[in-house]
């Protein structure tokens, strides 16, 4: 890539950073440091604003870079991701958005703790939320790294590491100084930019094929080198039973994980009522669905116009398909159009990463300060102290994410996000469902449900081919591989539900009937909601 790309992309990205920093400053000018303000942005966002912010939070580098890359390289099997990512929102809409808005304050643990003994469930739910967030953060960091590697060409390693560090530092600034209000506005700006960019690219792809989708699919098929198989499932997840089980596992994790993602749950507290939460989900389903439909066109477009060899040469797991497609659509590497479009897309991808990273960092710092710290500290602390802790926690989480991001840089981003979803579905969803819908659920059941999903999920990932035992693992030299699947969902999600049930039926303490009545009434009517 030549100097023009770099200069222009950096200029655009700097503009985005400047705008978002201005937002952060402007917002924090009138901040009064309350927890309500820091975690929930004062709860006064409109459904449309929150809908855009939700889609901004959800459509990460995994979607913009990772999924399009998978579609471009593996055809239909990449599309299966997209379907899972979208259908998941029905779980959120039906079971989570309104009910959680009605009976929680800032985090998942609030919902559970309202029915149970507070300390153990806060520690459990806080731990699992932080784990999910860190995994998700790593995926974004890897995305940032591969984007920079593309942008700076062969000058590679050092620049890549510095980008990851820079992204981490910026996110800490946003979160610590701006809290939820700044983070939400950054999400909205980013969401509009990304949707706009995607619309432009989609239109250009369709124009290139004169609006003939059939022609687009045929060209992609011919060029992929896989023939007809490119448009049918099985290229990536076909073959042996492990690959197939792996795919079913991923499918379950995607659909059930969204409802347990801490940064998505915390968004529902930024609107005033359950009805507003519902309407924000409707907005986000529309935006996300539209975006993914365009992603499919972009993925096949990249396969047809750029071709798999060029894609693989640039990034082995396909993360750079969209920027390369933009370069081609603009007229090629040596034209002004190509340069401009490439720079715009790269800047949008950066903005995406930055915004999502800020959203997750905020959610996980809330888990640390509001759940873990609040449960572990000595009584008598003040609320002011909690927000201060959250700011410090943001720094700590940033450091961890940077370190892991540097370590995991060769994995596909969409795949890494799949892992985060699996952990969320195993550890957070069972406890949430039981709390909202099971009359006999007890404190022990809640604690077991969290750890019973979290520990197997993490352990199975550690023992999977992702970490060791195969050439593309994190530690190819070591062999700790005892679990054949790359995604643990199919085992760990049922284990989470099972552990919750087991903990409940074996607990000596009877369920608190009045607390259950309170949760049920509050979740469906909104009585006493903050």
């Amino acid at each position, binding site marked *: 890539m030549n100097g023009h790309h770099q200069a222009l992309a950096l200029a655009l990205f700097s503009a985005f950073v400047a705008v978002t920093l201005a937002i952060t400053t402007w917002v924090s000018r009138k901040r009064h440091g309350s927890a309500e303000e820091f975690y929930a942005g004062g*709860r*006064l966002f*409109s*459904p449309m604003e929150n809908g855009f912010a939700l889609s901004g939070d959800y459509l990460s580098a995994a979607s913009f870079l990772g999924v399009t890359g998978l579609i471009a390289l593996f055809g*239909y099997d990449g*599309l*299966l991701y*997209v*379907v*899972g990512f*979208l*259908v998941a*929102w*029905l779980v959120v*809409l*039906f*079971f989570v958005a*309104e009910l959680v808005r009605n009976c929680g304050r800032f985090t998942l643990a609030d919902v559970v703790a309202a029915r149970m003994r507070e300390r153990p469930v806060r520690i459990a739910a806080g731990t699992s939320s932080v784990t999910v967030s860190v995994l998700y953060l790593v995926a974004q960091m890897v995305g940032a790294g591969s984007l920079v590697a593309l942008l700076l060409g062969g000058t590679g390693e050092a620049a890549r590491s510095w980008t990851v560090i820079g992204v981490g530092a910026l996110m800490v600034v946003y979160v610590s100084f701006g809290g939820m209000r700044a983070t939400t506005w950054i999400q909205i700006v980013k969401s509009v930019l990304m949707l706009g960019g995607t619309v432009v690219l989609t239109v250009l792809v369709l124009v290139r094929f004169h609006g003939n989708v*059939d022609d687009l*699919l*045929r060209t992609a*098929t011919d060029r992929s080198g896989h023939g007809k*198989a490119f*448009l*049918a*499932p*099985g290229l990536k*997840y076909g073959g042996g039973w492990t690959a*197939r089980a792996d*795919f*079913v596992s991923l*499918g*379950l994790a995607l*659909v059930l994980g969204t409802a347990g993602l801490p940064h998505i749950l915390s968004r529902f507290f930024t609107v*005033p*009522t359950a*009805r*507003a939460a*519902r*309407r924000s*989900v*409707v907005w986000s*389903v529309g935006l996300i*669905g539209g975006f*993914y*439909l365009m992603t499919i066109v972009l993925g096949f477009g990249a396969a047809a116009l750029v071709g798999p060899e060029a894609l693989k040469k640039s990034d082995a797991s396909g993360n750079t398909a969209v920027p390369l497609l933009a370069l081609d659509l603009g007229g090629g590497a040596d034209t002004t159009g190509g340069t401009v479009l490439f720079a715009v897309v790269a800047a949008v991808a950066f903005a995406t990463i930055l915004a999502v990273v800020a959203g997750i960092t905020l959610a996980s710092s809330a888990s640390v300060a509001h759940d873990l710290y609040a449960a572990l500290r000595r009584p008598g602390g003040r609320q002011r102290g909690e927000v201060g802790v959250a700011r410090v926690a943001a720094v700590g989480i940033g450091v961890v994410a940077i370190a892991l991001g540097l370590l995991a840089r060769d994995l596909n981003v969409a795949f890494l996000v799949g892992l985060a979803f699996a952990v969320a579905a195993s550890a957070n969803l069972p406890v949430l469902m039981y709390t909202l819908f099971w009359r006999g659920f007890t404190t022990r059941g809640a604690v077991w449900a969290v750890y019973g999903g979290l520990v197997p999920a993490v352990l199975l990932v550690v023992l999977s081919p992702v970490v060791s035992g195969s050439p593309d693992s994190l530690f190819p030299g070591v062999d700790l591989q005892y679990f054949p699947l790359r995604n643990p969902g199919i085992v760990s999600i049922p284990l989470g539900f099972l552990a919750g049930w087991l903990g409940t039926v074996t607990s000596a303490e009877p369920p608190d*009937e*009045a*607390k259950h*009545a*309170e949760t*049920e*009434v*509050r979740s*469906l*009517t*909104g*009585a*006493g909601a*903050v």
Partner: protein
Amino acid sequence: MQSRNGRSPVGGGAAEDLPEHPAPRDPVPPDGGQGPAAGYDDPWYDALAAGWAEADGAGLAARAVPAPRRERERGVAEVYLEVRSSAAFQEVRRRYRRFVIPGALVFLTWYVGYVVAATSAPGLMARPVAGAVNVAMLAGLGQFLSTFLLTWAYTRHARLRRDRAALDLRWSTQELTRSSGGGQR
């Protein structure tokens, strides 16, 4: 219990004729001081005002109930137990479950079926339909379509069949918890 007898039929009635109610955005003069936590630009706020001014009795009956003079925590717990066993709440819960349980069964079955078909019956999925479009493509787009449709159906159901009754319950419950022990939060 006095309050249960007082509220149930009224609340149930309000839930029954719910679809005939005007849209909650009718310009009714707001009933000052009744919106505790909500802001004024809150969509519930208008609905609240309309609900009170319509005098269908749900809120009024609740207000007329004498406050139980008990210890605070206990009082609040009693209120929630009582509201849960009221006919009005049971109706709201029944309507919610009647929609989400079959709805969730439909979309989960359809999605799991799709994933399993994609992994175990690639031959079927690869069958061409028209041009380059095959069964797998249509099934994928079908998932998009069904998601959009169910989202629309859920919100419509919630808006027409649940919101009004839930809102009435919200205010009457809050009124009861307040009078039984200084309220919540």
